[in-house]
């Protein structure tokens, strides 16, 4: 391997098994189709996608590293910069805004003392502005670490959630 850091970098057996299950969904000569899922699985295990991790995934799927970088930087939910242990993404698009999303976002900014795209000094929270999550009827809403959706938010409900996230 060209990059010496790759030698020390490994994903867990569980993550690799998940990636293998994704690879199996596609024709055998189309392993690259699994790159989106593989990057998601790698990010879930490691917290964020540092360049070496992206290269590792590309290597595993026998695709050019640059093609994996392109994917990691194109889709919004991949983090190619470090984030806090808990990433909170709030949708502020029009339907959510009509239903109170800006009040939730304002509450979060005030409570955490950070703006969108920032991380608290203790590394606990990152706040992100999201785009449409396809659940506008349940607004306002947020995503916790990309995968858990919390809906019908109020400042009180938001506080309860934050308290649980250590």
């Amino acid at each position, binding site marked *: 391997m060209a990059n010496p850091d790759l030698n020390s970098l490994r994903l867990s057996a569980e993550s690799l098994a998940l990636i293998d299950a994704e690879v199996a*969904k*596609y*024709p055998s000569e*189309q392993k*690259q*189709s*699994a*790159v*989106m*899922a593989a*990057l*998601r699985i790698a990010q879930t295990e490691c917290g964020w996608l540092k360049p070496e991790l992206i290269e590792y995934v590309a290597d595993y*799927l026998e*695709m050019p590293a640059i*093609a994996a970088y*392109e*994917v990691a930087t*194109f*889709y*919004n*939910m*991949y983090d190619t910069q470090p984030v806090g242990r808990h990433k909170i993404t709030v949708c*502020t*698009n*029009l*339907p959510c*805004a*009509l*239903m109170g999303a800006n009040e939730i976002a304002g509450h979060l900014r005030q409570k955490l003392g950070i703006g969108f795209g920032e991380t608290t000094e203790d590394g606990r929270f990152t706040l992100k502005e*999201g*785009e*449409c*999550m*396809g*659940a*506008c*009827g*349940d*607004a306002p809403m947020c*995503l916790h670490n*990309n*995968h*858990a*959706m919390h809906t019908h938010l109020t400042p009180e409900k938001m506080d309860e959630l934050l308290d649980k996230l250590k």
Partner: protein
Amino acid sequence: MSLLAPTSQVCSWTQALDDPASLATYVANGGYQALRRVVTEQMPGDAIIAELKTSALRGRGGAGFPTGLKWSFMPRAFPGDKYIVCNSDEGEPGTFKDRDILRYNPHQLIEGMAIAGYVLGAKVGYNYIHGEIFEIYDIFERALKEAREAGYLGDNLFGTDFCFQLHAHHGYGAYICGEETALLESIEGKKGQPRFKPPFPASFGLYGKPTTINNTETLASVPWIMQHGGQAFLELGKPNNGGAKLFSISGHVNKPGNYEVPLGTPFSELLQMAGGVRSGHQLKAVIPGGSSAPVLPAGIMMDCTMDFDSIAKAGSMLGSGAVIVMDETVCMVRALERLSYFYFEESCGQCTPCREGTGWMYRVIHRIEHGQGRPEDMDLLNSVAGHIGGHTICALGDAAAMPVQSFLKHFGHEFEHHIEHKRCMV
């Protein structure tokens, strides 16, 4: 209220039942019977396409293209791999109907895709699911597992030589992947940048093979049509607008949510179902078909019926059936500013008019909203929007231009007031 009973609920009938997403619930209520009949009786594909044409089922993802006609474009008899792809990448602001089909009625979609596979000669299908709804993706994966174990997906279905396998592909945050060719690129493991058309996916689709792409609700409607016939589906709605449709209602209503009603239902009735405009307020404007559809003032909207033709006649689009309701407290400049930011943020960057133009539009609307608008800005916005629409590879350019043009057309006085007085009139 099962699949067997021809009620006006084509996709949402399981929600009244216990454990709505389970295979047991679906099968106990007539699920997978249409697939079994189609496959074991070896029904000719032409007959099924004819039934879809009779039904006047039109694409539920936004474009409203006749489904039977789309299926007829596939070179079905050609040897070699072909694919059926479902577009569950639901990220058009205001739209959240496919999410409910996936979480409450996933098997009807699976059955619809299997029938599509049978007709189109596709042995493999993919369902592309919006990135932000990971929990729903999990539900759909579980439904796929159930269907495989019960023999509704896999090899030699019902003892015939028909084989069909279906997989879920999870997106990860890109509105553009709702565009069908960007979606195909994404399944191939690439950036979601739309392809030039032609060639159309029916001749050059996923992995370069013939591919048909339909929306979730469209495919989930197919088993109902095969159970009750195209004529029954057509009669649910109105001519050229067959069936019932899910409408996602968000914004300033008392009961936001999904409501499935026959196409042709008056907007005023739909609004009533959603509890009406929030208490103590008046309707100001409605975006009737997702954020890309032109906005309509209350007076025009209240005279519309909810179908493709009526909304088009009023100057907008039924689109995905996402109804964004705004009351008199909404500043239309601020509303458009947020929508324009969205298109700027989500432009894939491939075509110059869209990549640059969405940024210009956002920045101009932003300065108007923040009291720095100039008298010439309205003409400038119309000019930029006009130079984007129709000048890009895909429809995101038009989708970004239409809100700007329609907000200026119907609510131009609010923009003028902002520019002149440096503040909001609402």
